């Protein structure tokens, strides 16, 4: 089966025919313009190996993300980076290629932190293995984490092994009133204390905090944080962007900044996550202004959802980095057939 995927890729490469690698298409909105013939990965699916006692799962790219998560949940485990699905059709391959993490990212780590190994089909149609199923592995360059978040531009992630975590025993969500600057300070202070904070979000004067861990630990921490317990299923709306903040026709920007950056003075509404490091902006502000604001605090801005991506989805790269990107792209995909231009013109 992996051979037939490799054959199709070899054939496309021989004809210099661009391919648009696609699972459920739930993240078609992400990145620059889509080009090439759709290469559907969903036929290559299924869990290859799952050993709960090893805290590792290996599955094929077309595996449904929600089915995978159900299987893990049945064993009291989870994907610690809490990936957004953005639709019921999300696949594991798309999740890893997009490299997006959810609300738990600031405390648990990013998707790439949990990638242990990949089977990759490169642009020559070669099936290659990097990393493995073990937690620690420093043999060779860390190609499996390089391809995480590469938007399918380096190869087809045919199979991936991920490190898992046990599901927390207890969870509790609290809500406090706080203006933005105060909320930023609180989130950063909490992160510097041994508290089981697993997610934070601020929007329009309300700071929402999730605690996860042992029942005793969550109970003890809740007292110190204060606020009132929140019963509604809030975090799913943040992760999946079904929260009211994300609706409306204006472009959605994702500004990634150091967590202690002061409130950003930009037109439009903001929602803050990840202890202050992720600032969502719904705004028609000039892209140059948004990118400059991010850059002033050593961050970067992604045009996450917008009808017009003429400004480029991702912050431009410094010339040296752009050159390295171009060279890596041609090392993995010499004919330039995988998702051309989806990330950058040079990659």
């Amino acid at each position, binding site marked *: 089966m992996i051979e037939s995927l490799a054959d199709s890729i070899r054939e496309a490469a021989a004809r210099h025919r661009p391919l648009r690698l696609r699972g459920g298409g739930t993240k078609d909105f992400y990145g620059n313009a889509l080009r090439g013939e759709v290469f559907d990965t969903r036929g290559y699916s299924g869990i290859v190996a799952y050993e709960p006692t090893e805290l590792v799962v290996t599955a094929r790219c077309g595996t449904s993300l929600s089915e995978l998560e159900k299987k893990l949940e049945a064993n009291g485990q989870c994907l610690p980076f809490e990936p957004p699905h953005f639709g019921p059709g999300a696949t594991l391959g798309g999740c890893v290629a997009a490299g997006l993490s959810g609300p738990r990212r600031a405390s648990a*780590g990013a998707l790439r932190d949990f990638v242990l190994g990949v089977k990759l089909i490169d642009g020559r149609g070669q099936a290659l293995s990097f990393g493995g*199923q073990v937690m620690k592995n420093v043999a*060779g360059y*860390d190609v499996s984490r390089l391809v995480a978040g590469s938007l399918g531009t380096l190869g087809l992630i045919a199979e991936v092994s991920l490190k898992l975590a046990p599901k927390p025993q207890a969870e509790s969500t609290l809500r406090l009133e706080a203006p933005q600057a105060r909320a930023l300070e609180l989130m950063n202070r909490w992160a*510097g204390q041994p508290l089981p904070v697993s997610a934070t979000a601020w929007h329009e004067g309300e700071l929402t905090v999730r605690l996860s861990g042992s029942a*005793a630990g969550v109970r003890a921490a809740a007292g110190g944080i204060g606020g009132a317990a929140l019963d509604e299923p809030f975090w799913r709306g943040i992760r999946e962007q079904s929260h009211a903040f994300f609706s409306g026709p204006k472009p959605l920007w994702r500004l990634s900044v150091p967590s*202690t950056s002061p409130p950003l003075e930009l037109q439009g509404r903001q929602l803050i996550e990840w202890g202050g490091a992720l600032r969502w902006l719904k705004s028609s502000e000039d892209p140059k202004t948004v990118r400059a604001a991010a850059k002033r605090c050593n961050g*970067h801005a992604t045009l996450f959802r917008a009808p017009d991506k003429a400004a480029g989805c991702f912050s431009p790269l410094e010339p040296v980095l752009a050159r390295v990107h171009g060279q890596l792209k041609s090392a*993995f995909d010499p004919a330039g057939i995988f998702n051309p231009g989806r990330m950058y013109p040079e990659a």
Partner: protein
Amino acid sequence: MGAALPVVRALREFLPERAILHEEEDTRPYECDGLTAYRQLPMVVALPETEEQVRRILQTCSALKIPVVPRGAGTGLSGGALPLGDGVLLSMAKFMRVLRIDPLARVAVVQPGVRNAVVSELSAPFGLYYAPDPSSQIACTIGGNVSENSGGVHCLKYGLTLHNVLGVRGFTIDGEPLQLGGEAPDAPGYDLLALAVGSEGMLFVLTEVTLKLLPKPQCARVIMASFGDVEKAGAAVADVIAAGIVPAGLEMMDRPATQAVEQFVHAGYDLEAAAILLCESDGTPEEVEDEIARMQTLLARAGATRMTVSRDEAERLRFWSGRKAAFPAVGRISPDYYCMDGTIPRKRLGEVLRFIAALEKKYGLRCPNVFHAGDGNLHPLILFDANNADELHRTELFAGEVLEKCVEVGGTITGEHGVGVEKINQMCVQFRPTELELFRAVKRAFDPQGLLNPGKAVPTLARCSEYGRMRVHGGQLPHPELPRF
């Protein structure tokens, strides 16, 4: 004589005399790193003090096509900093400033020559610490840790260096500045930071590292549990994980290892036990009490014959002192030892330990084992005498077989020490020619002339062919399914 070298003359144009070593008496201390079996005098040692000097050294060497080997404290165990006789050894020892500690943002910005332990010491007043704690942490530097993706005894819960580095700054071999990652998460483009961490000084030279600091847990306690056989101890580890516990530390030592250690540090280990487990919990006092009780129940059910829980911080540190001193302790009972670093899926532990025991007989060499049980990283220590050429040879064969066994059971030849020169042959076993070629292409993307630490970590095609011929036993390759050339 060295003074007449063109590279020395070129370096003198911008480096002070004290920053250029070329007399044998001065370069001798740099002839090896922690892997002392391999030695080579460098042509020149350069000791820059500023980023600008690093940039110009690299530019100079690139123009003269002279290879450069970067070096931190020289504690590496895989020969990653082994010099080249026709190359410049770039010592980053003078880059020892901590540039910034920001307690609110929980980051430390340091130069690569800063020692690992210093970061936690300086962060302690803010209730913070730097999590990766390789056993050599009092001596090894952050630059070396980043280059090797070092681990430690708390990786299962807190990750490797990779998970605790936010960004790096440095220069390519052509002297171009590079900034990868940073305090803002998810840098745009490819995750070059992931590529940089563990790249063994082969892609670029680091001059600055931004580290993530974590809040120090309120308390930590460790259980020392004895087992009558090693496999039972391994099964106990699986039981703890299966119960949904991620211990802060989970280490195993077999009896030969505890015996060597006990003579040296008196950690209070049970010398009757075939293996001991050190099983640590950290968090709030409530969490720790709860988790320790659950782990004790699980370990007892798994057949622990004795358990002691640390009563206070002094006792906890004493229990760990033995584990952290395992390498030097073994160094006292044998003229030399050879430390391996393979990682395996935990469930194959029993099989691999039996395999190692059989090799002890086959090669007539002893091999105590210390094991990062939580993450499957083995450190078997082969005891030998380097003055005995035959013992050294048998040790290399022994080690080679163990590493190849790790690959066979689905693991890797190196978990945290790096490939360096030491395991370069085994790279030909773990990876296929197509994969190795991609590694070489990755290197070329940063270093087209192949001047940064050449000959390390990624073998050439020719080297693998030669090794393949050497390893053919009775006409049968150990992995006939792997394509060869």
